[in-house]
């Protein structure tokens, strides 16, 4: 007897493709948020599949803090060229120059929080009515409460206590003028699913995810890359370590892990054995227990 069942990765893929096609059908002007990290790479790969043989019908939107690892930008530019997509960059530096936001001060200064203003300004400037993101519910507990189609009011804010119920595969993207939606096609994927999918689909990812030698220092138990954007405190010492990044974000808030994993298979084994979550290396989440929820309410990714 033939079994008409599909694997869990095929089911997650089918779900994400369905969601992306709903975005195209329900919104006039959507953008796909692209950071150069693995999750947004997977979402753009899924978008290619969803609309093949046509091109991705959304521009890719990068909110650039200016504090990038050069590897991320190199990857971004070659990837955009390869898939023939349009790239729009929203620059945090510009928001600072225009006086829209003020740079944080101190040792843990980061432009992570400032991104929200740049993101909302860019959404307004291009009149996007939907921004597709690569957030996953398993990443963080505030995100576990997020909908696939997540409503944002005219100030770009999320109201977690008053979300629309989301049933079956029916997504309600109706909104008033000036409001927009955030849509998360890979809500149901875990970190492991992402890596398995990258392995299975042979998806290219930035070299930062693989083991390499890098000058780094330790702060609050997290290994940070030594970059021009980071100021050392007394007692912090730069050493060359063999490491890789488990998540990729702004260079000032993304921690590294000591690792020799050089292939996707080795990364998968490492993830399988990991006893801490991937956001455990993110300084931006360590600010308080509700750090993510607070940023999300303001309009963060």
């Amino acid at each position, binding site marked *: 007897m033939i079994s*008409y069942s599909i*694997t*869990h990765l*095929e089911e997650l893929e089918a779900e994400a493709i369905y969601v992306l096609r709903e975005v195209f059908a329900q919104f006039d002007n959507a953008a796909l948020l692209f950071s150069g990290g693995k999750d947004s790479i997977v979402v753009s790969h899924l978008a290619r599949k969803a609309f093949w043989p046509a091109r991705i019908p959304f521009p890719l939107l990068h909110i650039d803090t200016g504090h990038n690892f050069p590897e991320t930008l190199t990857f971004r530019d070659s990837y955009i060229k390869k898939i023939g997509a349009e790239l729009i960059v929203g620059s945090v530096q510009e928001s600072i120059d225009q006086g829209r936001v003020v740079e944080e001060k101190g040792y843990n200064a980061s432009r992570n929080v400032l991104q929200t203003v740049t993101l909302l300004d860019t959404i307004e400037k291009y009149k996007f009515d939907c921004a597709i993101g690569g957030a996953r519910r398993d990443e*963080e507990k505030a995100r*576990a409460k997020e909908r696939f189609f997540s409503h944002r009011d005219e100030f770009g804010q999320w109201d977690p206590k008053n979300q629309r119920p989301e049933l079956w595969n029916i997504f309600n993207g109706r909104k008033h003028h000036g409001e927009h939606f955030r849509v998360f096609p890979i*809500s149901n994927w875990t970190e492991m699913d992402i890596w398995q999918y990258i392995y299975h689909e042979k998806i290219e990812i930035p070299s930062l995810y693989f083991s390499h030698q890098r000058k780094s220092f330790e702060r609050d138990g997290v290994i940070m890359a030594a970059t021009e954007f980071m100021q050392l405190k007394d007692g912090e010492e730069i050493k060359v370590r063999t490491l890789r990044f488990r998540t990729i974000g702004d260079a000032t808030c993304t921690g590294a892990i000591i690792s020799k994993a050089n292939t996707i298979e080795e990364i998968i084994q490492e993830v399988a054995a990991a006893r*801490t*979550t991937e956001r455990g290396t993110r300084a931006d989440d360590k600010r308080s227990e509700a750090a993510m*929820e607070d940023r999300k309410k303001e309009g963060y990714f």
Partner: protein
Amino acid sequence: MNKELDNKAYLGMELLRFTTAGSVDDGKSTLIGRLLYDTKSIFIDQYEAIVATSKRKGDDYVNLALLTDGLRAEREQGITIDVAYRYFATPKRKFIIADTPGHIQYTRNMVTGASTANLALILVDARKGLLEQTQRHTFIAALLGISHIVFCINKMDLVDYSQEVYDEIRVEIEGFASKLDVKDIQFIPVSALIGDNVVHKLKNMNWYQGATLMYLLETIHIGSDHNHIDCRFPVQTVIRPQNNAYHDYRGYAGRIAGGIFKPGDEVLVLPSGFSSKIKSINNFERELQEAYAPMSVTIQLEDELDISRGDMIVREHNQPHMGQDIEMMICWMNQKKIVQNGKYIVRHITNEVKCVVKEINYKVNINTLHRIEEDKDIGMNDIARIRIRTTKPLLFDRYTRNRITGSLVLIDEGTNETVGAGMIL
């Protein structure tokens, strides 16, 4: 994450979505915590964070519910407001748990969690037996068309692991459940606190010869939960590439809602009624020899037809219902009560039309299953039978036949909020 997962096995795993029901004191959080803990799915930093929070709040024990309470208001008030989704995997399957809160807006949340679940886990306190709320949980699971219901008779440690107690509860539940339409009902005596019959079998209940909860979750047959009989392909969007390589390409993109489609099949397009033949079925560059629910694919037809979003590709001799008068059970999800003769927006598969609520037949007392014909006052968390009339005909099946083509939501025209979840009769 479990160390035994190897790449190949993981790539071949199935996905099981289940929802959990039980009130605060039934030990639901403990059971979920136990499942996660015993499958090594809790990470050290997550665990340390909840240990610290429990300590700060002065709890005597590590409160595993803190794992799922993601919002500030939930942590402050010690209650769960919204459905939380949790993920774990064993070497056999990947699981998504829709964990629904115990008291506040119970029906609305359980209906939401149950709408995508293959299986419902209903907790029963062995000391209390079949309560009104157990009946309510069972009724909602059945109404939402969940094929498998597993009753976990929990806290067996508090009734001396007594077989008599377990048997009594089981008989009682079986009596009640026989009034409902559920394919598969299972019972397991467990102690979530001790961890007996959850992931491991301890020696306290040697009289129980059945499987552990985990074994059941890993092996229960879910392949036939989708409809593989009635061919239903709702068109989501039409793909027309603006490039030379695919100049004349016209692909219909969508997610299969039922049946099995193959290249060469004679098909009918509704509502137009044109016939054609399937030329190809694709997932990206890969051509498929057959496709079935819940796959997302792109279908090309032999003939150039005028097809757009909202249309449905079916087989000539197995067509869905087409009509404007639709009878359904509805779960109301908004503070604003349903308005008889009120107008709403209907979202059904890939269609959006307007409707008017023509008739409210009765409200269901979800604790006793009695129909209350004189009560037409339908508010938040109520379940009722209603009839609507739509502005345009919809293509639908009965919900019990197909959960995708048989479900719809009602949307408030003014606020754009989703106010009702309907299951077509």
